[in-house]
C-alpha cells in the first residue's frame, strides 16, 4: 500500500515568511509524528499526535512552531516568521498505535527540505 507522503519535497523561503508543511500518513495509522533533521544532527522529535490530539508537544522549539491534525489523518506543520536556523529536513512518520503505550513501528515519509534564505 501507499506509504507516508509529504509535500512539498523542497521549500525555499525568505526569512520572516510563514511556511506550511503537509503530511499524509499511512491509511489507518492513528499516531503521527514530526521530526526535524538538521545537518550533522540526529533526528529531533517535535510533536506526536494520537488521533487529532497532541499528547506530546515537548519538542517544538518555539511558539513559532505549531501543528494540527484533522480527521485523524492529514497533518500540517506551520512555522511562522521563519529564521535561518529553521533550515532542515522535516520528517513525518506514522504508526498503528491502536493502544497508547504499545510499541509500534514508525514509518517515515521522504521529508520536506526547508531552506530559509
Amino acid at each position, binding site marked *: 500500500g501507499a506509504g507516508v507522503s509529504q509535500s512539498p519535497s523542497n521549500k525555499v523561503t525568505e526569512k520572516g515568511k510563514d511556511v506550511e508543511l503537509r503530511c499524509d500518513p499511512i491509511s489507518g495509522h492513528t499516531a503521527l509524528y514530526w521530526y526535524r533533521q538538521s545537518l550533522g*544532527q540526529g533526528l529531533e522529535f517535535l510533536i506526536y499526535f494520537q488521533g487529532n490530539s497532541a*499528547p506530546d508537544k515537548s519538542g517544538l522549539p518555539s511558539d513559532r512552531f505549531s501543528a494540527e491534525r484533522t480527521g485523524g489523518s492529514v497533518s500540517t506543520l506551520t512555522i511562522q516568521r521563519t529564521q535561518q536556523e529553521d533550515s532542515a529536513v522535516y520528517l513525518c512518520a506514522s504508526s498503528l498505535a491502536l493502544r497508547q503505550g504499545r510499541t509500534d513501528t514508525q514509518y517515515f515519509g*521522504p521529508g520536506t527540505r526547508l531552506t530559509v534564505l
Partner: protein
Amino acid sequence: EDQVTQSPEALRLQEGESSSLNCSYTVSGLRGLFWYRQDPGKGPEFLFTLYSAGEEKEKERLKATLTKKESFLHITAPKPEDSATYLCAVQPITQGGSEKLVFGKGTKLTVNP
C-alpha cells in the same frame, strides 16, 4: 535525560569485509530499540525492533543484538548496496505515554566494491 550515542560516525569497508556498528544508550526505561537505514535524500527505512536484553534479529546480511546498555548491528559480507547511514533510536517509557523516538546521529557506512 535519554541519550543515544552511535559509533563510529563513519565506516569504510571493502565488499565482503564484515564489521559491527555500535549504539549505546541511557534511558530511564526502555520500551524498544529501533534500527533504521537512511539513504541520501530519503526518509529512514525501518530495519529492526528489539525489546529486551539478549534479543537478536536478522535480515539478510544484517543482525541486530541488544544488551542492557547497547545494541550492535552486525553486517556480514557487506555489498556496495549496503552503503547508507544507519540510525539507532530508543523509545523510552514515559509517564505520559508519549511514543516519541530518541535518535542517535547515525553511522555512515560506505562499502567499496
